[in-house]
């Protein structure tokens, strides 16, 4: 539910926030995914897994998929928060990230 949650709540967030989804999928797969759910943000196609490795979402180039991780990066390019979730904590993960954003802006 994380992607739809982001889609529905991003407009309420600060305009000075850019959201990107990241997976190892092809452009075609991500395009279909974006159109199916109407994500209002770009989906990055990390088919080489360079982002996945750099952000510790994957352990090696053979990884089939990134782990579910949400990072927030501040305006200076520094890590502001990093959260990984189990399959049971997906919703809590994005809600916590959003709550933190809101707190930051008020």
């Amino acid at each position, binding site marked *: *539910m*994380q*992607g*739809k949650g*982001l*889609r529905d709540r991003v407009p309420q967030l*600060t305009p*000075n*926030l*850019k*959201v*990107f*989804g*990241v*997976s190892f*999928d092809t*452009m075609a*797969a*991500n*395009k*279909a*995914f*974006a159109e*199916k*759910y109407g994500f209002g943000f*770009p*989906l*990055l*196609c*990390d088919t080489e897994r*360079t*982002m*996945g490795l*750099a*952000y*510790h*979402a994957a*352990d090696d180039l053979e990884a089939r*998929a*990134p*782990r*579910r*991780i*949400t*990072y*927030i*990066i*501040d*305006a*200076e*390019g*520094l*890590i*502001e928060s*990093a*959260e*990984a979730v189990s399959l049971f904590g997906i919703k809590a993960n*994005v809600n916590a*990230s959003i709550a933190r*954003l809101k707190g930051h802006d008020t």
Partner: protein
Amino acid sequence: MIFGKPPKLLPVGAPAPDFEVLDHEGRTVTLAEQRGSRVLLWFYPHASTPG
């Protein structure tokens, strides 16, 4: 790795690694060009993931 230990994430305050990657529309996206904006990176397993 499904049952492995939790991943060690990048620490808060560390420089976020730059990247240059194509988005789903074929546009090149870099982290450097986002400077001045906050950025949320949402890593998800597969495009077929239920939204």
